[in-house]
């Protein structure tokens, strides 16, 4: 008996220790970025172009570039990902072909992002002749996020009780009506959360845009999807490894990191709000 309670305490404390360890690392990262980056953040940093070989000025074009590319990714990946997930979850039979498709999609989520970058060059930039552009990068990032969106959406749909579907069908709904009016609204919070987390990962990727559209320095903002662009993650990479005066621009690098983190944070807040708004109607059943 006493030995049992000793084991219990030991187990619990071990778990606590690891949780604290994880929180500690997270805290160090946030503190590091915030303390070293917050000093350079002002309106000039957010709304100005880089000047004097990037040693002065702001990161305005990189912010706009990242937002622009993420928008293209959203438009491409979200409808396609959700449609695929609906098909796999609601329509596809459980046969060998479909199991193979599912397994492939899950495996794609683990493919290194640089591979997606190479694929993007081969297919979008050269194959389809889209050139080094916002569109090529957005599509490449879209491919990168698709497996993530499909998997999370499929999980969200699977969590909708079967009785919602049967109930709708029994009232004379077609299968599509049951999905559209009943299953999807119940799964919205899961779908939105998964999609936004996928997009926020895409917004921070460097490798897939490296060969497909991002530029070292541009004097102007991309005017259309066929232009090149600057982006925060790549800018950060340049400032921390490729610059001629790395030590001098270190604060700017941290500032960029802070802005990028904030963007991801805002996306997550949006996901949280949407989840919260839909929660009231999905409260626990009897």
């Amino acid at each position, binding site marked *: 008996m006493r030995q049992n309670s000793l084991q219990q305490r030991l187990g619990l404390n071990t778990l606590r220790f690891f949780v604290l360890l994880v929180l500690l690392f997270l805290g160090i990262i946030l503190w590091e970025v915030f303390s070293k980056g917050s000093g350079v953040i002002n309106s000039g940093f957010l709304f100005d172009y880089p000047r004097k070989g990037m040693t002065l000025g702001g990161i305005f074009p990189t912010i706009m570039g990242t937002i622009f590319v993420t928008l293209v990714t959203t438009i491409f990946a979200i409808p396609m990902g959700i449609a695929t997930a609906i098909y796999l979850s609601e329509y596809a039979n459980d046969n060998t072909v479909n199991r193979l498709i599912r397994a492939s999609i899950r495996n794609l989520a683990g493919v290194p992002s640089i591979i997606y970058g190479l694929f993007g060059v081969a297919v979008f930039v050269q194959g389809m002749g889209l050139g080094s552009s916002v569109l090529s990068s957005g599509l490449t990032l879209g491919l990168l996020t698709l497996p993530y969106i499909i998997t999370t959406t499929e999980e969200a749909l699977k969590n909708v009780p079967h*009785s919602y579907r049967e109930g709708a069908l029994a009232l004379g*709904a077609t299968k599509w009506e049951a999905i559209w009016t009943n299953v999807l609204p119940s799964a919205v919070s899961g779908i939105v959360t998964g999609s936004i987390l996928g997009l926020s990962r895409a917004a921070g990727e460097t490798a897939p845009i490296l060969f497909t559209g991002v530029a070292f320095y541009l004097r102007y903002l991309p005017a259309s999807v066929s232009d090149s662009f600057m982006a925060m993650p790549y800018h950060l990479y340049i400032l921390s490894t490729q610059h001629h005066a790395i030590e001098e621009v270190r604060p700017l690098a941290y500032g960029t990191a802070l802005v990028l983190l904030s963007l991801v944070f805002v996306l997550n807040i949006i996901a949280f709000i949407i989840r919260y708004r839909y929660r009231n*109607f999905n409260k626990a059943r*009897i």
Partner: protein
Amino acid sequence: MKTKLAVRDLHLHYGTKEVLKGINLDIPENNIVALIGPSGCGKSTLLRAMNRMHDLNPEAKVKGKILLDDDDIYAPGKDVVAVRRKIGMVFQKPNPFPKSIFDNIAYGLKIAGENDKHKLHAIVERTLRSSYLWEEVKDDLDKSALSLSGGQQQRLCIARAVAVQPEVLLMDEPCSALDPISTAKIEALMLELKKEYTIVIVTHNMQQAQRVADLTAFMYFGEVIEFAPTRQLFDAPQMELTANYLNGNFG
């Protein structure tokens, strides 16, 4: 009495297992017919066959006919949506949609293309009144249906099925998750509803079958052993299996 729903030599296989072995059953109009029998005897399976719910399961193979007013619902090319509009279903566990009370009742009507707000309101009110739910929820029509109690949820589900004015109502153990008071309310509702609808109910509760059903069918291992007026079946069963089951010798 006119036969509303006629089951003719119905076989159903799940994969290689035969779950229904040639069912024949005549369900008269404006009657309540109870299906009783031990667990796994195929009563729910039969009920679900009556509005083609097995279509969703690729494992299930149906052979035979079910005639609704002499019209086979399994005929090739039959519109399954039209069938389900005429044959509604209430499930074992209350399954209100995660929508408002109003939207739950209006769901079937909207699906059928009714968009006139005044008309929807009128039908929702009438349906809720006829399910004796109106007084309890009239101020909360915009609230989530999931906030209702279990018994209220089930009456809401019955109201939802009735709102589209089907001809037959199938009920799969509608009271198995409810307390005696809610059960009594639903039974009273069923007796009211049978004036306009034909009802088939699956139940494990022998008293319930005796309280509400005009006719009762006893099923055992995928076959209808005995089908007779409820009083007769319970008081003087003709088959030995039925008598054994009613005496609690198995099941």
